[in-house]
């Protein structure tokens, strides 16, 4: 930006040049002056000036002004509390006023020690009180959802939470009731605050009014360590901090990566960590014993047994991967299976196409787009899309993936046409079809996105690291081998694979099964040998998110059992394959092959997005054969599902109801009203589900959450 476009503002005698329209808080910060704030939060939209903490004296204005509501204009002369007596007095009065009814809760309050109210009082406030009257009291704490407790006594009415609910998550469930001194924060109609992003208000609250029930009284700021890592529960890969105390994860906080998550987290990412302490967590290797179920094995015996099983299979081994492994783990497993045993067959959780690398953009580009056809959304992506819509972007539902693609590629299609013309257009695609984004890449290429740096395409995979493990598995060996038949041994890596019906079906054909899982519930009944698994919070390594961003996982807590890399390394030793037990060493090997030798240490805490690459032309799979009549069933994995979510009591209410989603047209044709119980039939099997009419669904398609879909697949018929 050239100098002429800047305005000059004087803050406490220091001149600073900023672009016009910059908030005064940021302007002062640029001058090295801090203006204290409670309510001000640029991510929540326009400032409201509710707390009055930012009072400043501005030349030409008779009264003190709330700095957060002002923007820089040329020649503005600002005097903050540091130089202005009046502003200081105003600020002190504001704090005194805020503290008049604030309860003496610091010792019991979870926010104590990391509380902005405390910090600002200590730094700017008066040392003593004039308040000698009894304080106002409320009933406390009020659980406004299973995960959030509200304490109205502590609330200073900054409206950050309601603004989040209203204008970021757009769920509108948190509201301010009453007026003036009677104002309180409440949920709408006193219903529980049930929304996928509700947890963010805990972090937004500048006092201890909204607290996490999970973290309630668990730790204090001086007793904890914050480990910067990455969420491993969905392909977005939000940057998080895992707060640990005494070797246990106590809470998850967001770690603002402005290109990935902008500091928001979904409730799954925030609250699901307690699955680490699930009751059926496996801590020791188990061997199946007929009649008695499982026997606990020592690690030495377990590795001996595993080696024997692997030997006996004579290379007829199939490895089923979850997509939640780290790159290193997948590579190590690949080295063991492919280089050590010559077993090249791996079942990857989903297809991933490298073709989209040519249209790579940070997720934050969605917000800045003007046009985006969306197929289906992933958690944080949804917030980005909402932000885009608020900023005036045109968001279109493109409908069913393949069909939609074909439609948009058509030069005559109106939407397709505007996509070709727009400079800032984003395509978002999810679902298990589409050849891992290959179709999308073809479409993007067709629409000429290659030449437009602000236009791009996102394919939303189902697994957190599907792309990473696919690359790593491929990098582990260059050889290929035939698919074994019959399968001598099925090696199931991870909980998602263990929970996958397709893998279960594969196991039917396998002679022996080794399962590597965290939870005993997933291994019972079919595993001959169970090796304990670890979670993303317990591993070191790297993940590749849906943007193609390589991000670093850090071990927050020591797992109850050795992590996968450790025992894979030991197991590999028995087959004369050298695999390091340390993520850094393994990554160095992987990086040499696929990441241009990027050192482990440079993956970074706020990882950059790799630049767009010249990707190979998308290899389009043959069109699936048209199926018979009926409605096409789309099985989807809802956000709040999977083994981890199932084990977190606070998230139970978020899990999908046993519903079948229908388009209004299909429903009307069949005479189905919302909420009615319907029968879904396929190939002779049928299920009773509640019907739900979804307007955005295209005709001819029904959606059922995978966990409720049972064995249904292909085309189904829905009847009352």
């Amino acid at each position: 930006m050239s100098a002429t476009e800047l305005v000059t503002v004087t803050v406490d005698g220091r001149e600073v040049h900023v672009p016009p329209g910059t908030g005064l808080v940021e302007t002062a910060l640029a001058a090295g002056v801090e203006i204290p704030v409670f309510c001000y939060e640029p991510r929540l939209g326009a400032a409201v000036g509710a707390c009055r903490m930012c009072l400043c004296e501005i030349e030409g204005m008779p009264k003190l002004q709330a700095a957060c509501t002002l923007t820089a204009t040329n020649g503005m002369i600002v005097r903050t509390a540091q130089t202005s007596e009046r502003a200081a007095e105003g600020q002190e009065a504001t704090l005194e006023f805020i503290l008049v009814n604030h309860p003496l809760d610091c010792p019991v309050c979870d926010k104590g020690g990391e509380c902005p109210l405390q910090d600002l009082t200590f730094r700017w406030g008066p040392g003593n009180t004039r308040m000698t009257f009894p304080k106002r009291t409320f009933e406390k704490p009020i659980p406004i959802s299973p995960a959030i407790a509200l304490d109205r006594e502590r609330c200073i009415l900054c409206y950050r939470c309601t603004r989040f609910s209203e204008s970021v998550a757009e769920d509108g469930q948190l509201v301010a009731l009453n007026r003036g001194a009677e104002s309180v924060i409440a949920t709408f109609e006193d219903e529980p605050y049930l929304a996928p992003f509700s947890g963010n208000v805990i972090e937004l609250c500048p006092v201890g009014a909204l607290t996490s029930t999970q973290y309630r009284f668990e730790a204090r700021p001086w007793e904890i360590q914050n480990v910067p890592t990455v969420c491993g529960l969905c392909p977005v890969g939000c940057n998080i901090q895992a707060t640990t105390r005494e070797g246990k994860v106590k809470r998850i906080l967001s770690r603002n990566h402005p290109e990935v998550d902008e500091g928001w987290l979904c409730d799954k990412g925030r609250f699901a960590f307690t699955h680490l302490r699930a009751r059926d967590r496996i801590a020791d290797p188990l061997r199946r014993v007929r009649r008695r179920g499982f026997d606990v094995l020592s690690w030495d015996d377990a590795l001996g047994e595993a080696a024997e099983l692997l030997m006996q299979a004579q290379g007829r081994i199939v490895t089923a991967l979850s997509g939640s492994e780290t790159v290193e783990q997948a590579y190590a497993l690949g080295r063991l299976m492919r280089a050590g045993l010559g077993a090249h067959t791996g079942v990857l959780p989903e297809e991933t196409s490298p073709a989209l690398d040519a249209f790579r953009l940070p997720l934050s580009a969605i917000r800045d787009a003007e046009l985006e056809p969306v197929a289906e959304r992933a958690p944080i992506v949804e917030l980005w899309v909402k932000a885009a819509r608020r900023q005036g972007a045109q968001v279109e539902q493109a409908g069913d993936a393949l069909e939609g693609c074909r439609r948009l590629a058509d030069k005559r299609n109106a939407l397709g046409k505007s996509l070709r013309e727009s400079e800032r257009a984003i395509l978002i695609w999810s679902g298990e079809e589409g050849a891992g984004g290959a179709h999308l890449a073809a479409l993007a290429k067709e629409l000429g996105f290659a030449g437009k740096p602000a236009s791009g395409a996102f394919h939303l995979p189902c697994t957190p690291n599907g792309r990473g493990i696919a690359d790593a598995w491929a990098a582990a060996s260059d050889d290929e081998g035939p698919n074994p038949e019959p399968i001598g041994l099925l090696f199931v890596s991870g909980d998602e694979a263990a929970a996958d019906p397709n893998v279960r079906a594969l196991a039917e054909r396998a002679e022996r099964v080794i399962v590597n899982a965290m939870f005993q519930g997933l291994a019972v009944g079919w595993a001959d040998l169970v090796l304990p698994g670890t979670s993303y919070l317990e591993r070191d390594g790297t993940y590749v998110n849906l943007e193609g961003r390589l991000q670093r996982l850090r071990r927050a807590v020591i797992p109850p059992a050795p992590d996968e890399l450790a025992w894979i390394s030991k197991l590999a030793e028995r087959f004369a394959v050298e695999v390091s037990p340390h993520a850094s060493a393994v990554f160095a090997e992987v990086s040499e092959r696929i990441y241009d030798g990027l050192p482990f240490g440079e993956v970074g805490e706020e990882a950059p997005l790799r630049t767009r690459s010249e990707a190979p032309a998308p290899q389009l799979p043959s069109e699936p054969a048209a199926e018979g009549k009926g409605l096409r069933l789309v099985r989807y994995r809802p956000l709040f599902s999977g083994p981890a979510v199932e084990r977190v009591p606070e998230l139970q209410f978020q899990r999908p109801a046993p519903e079948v989603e229908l388009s209004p047209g299909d429903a009307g044709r069949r005479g189905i009203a919302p909420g009615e119980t319907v029968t879904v039939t396929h190939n002779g099997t049928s299920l009773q589900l509640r019907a739900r009419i979804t307007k955005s669904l295209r005709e001819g398609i029904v959606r059922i959450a995978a966990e409720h879909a049972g064995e249904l697949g292909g085309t189904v018929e829905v009847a009352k």
Partner: protein
Amino acid sequence: MARGNPIDSVKGFGVTFKQIFKKPITQQYPEYKRPVYPRFRGRHRLHVHENGLEKCVGCSLCAAACPADCIRVVAAENTADNRVSAGERYARIYEINMSRCIFCGYCELACPFDAITLGNEYEISEYSRDDLIYTKDMLLAEPIKKVPVADRDLYDTPIPYYQEHS
């Protein structure tokens, strides 16, 4: 070589001989316990309210103040059927590692509820370090061994000026 009066060398014999008739200054410790002064900082104690509830709310301020990091507090929430302290929260685990404690008394200063104080007991030796980790039960218990305290009126702080003037 010779300096001063050689007779002076003999003076020292007088000094040592004289002491024979004085009362020894050593104290016969286990039988006699010298009274400590009221401010003496010895073994910690946790206090309870008159109604039986613990004063400690498990706020961990003592742990934060401890320069030796010898205090561990794990808090939990009071429930209707298990009410331990007066506030919302209570200390489920309260441990002091006496082998690390430096008896600076910062925990006492830090506690906003006067729940922990440093008492007058100094007989806290043990044969094993493990036994020096004091749990909440031990800290709440009435100390068994009593040490006399010197006259509190005489040796303790006069009323502070700010109390007189407020």
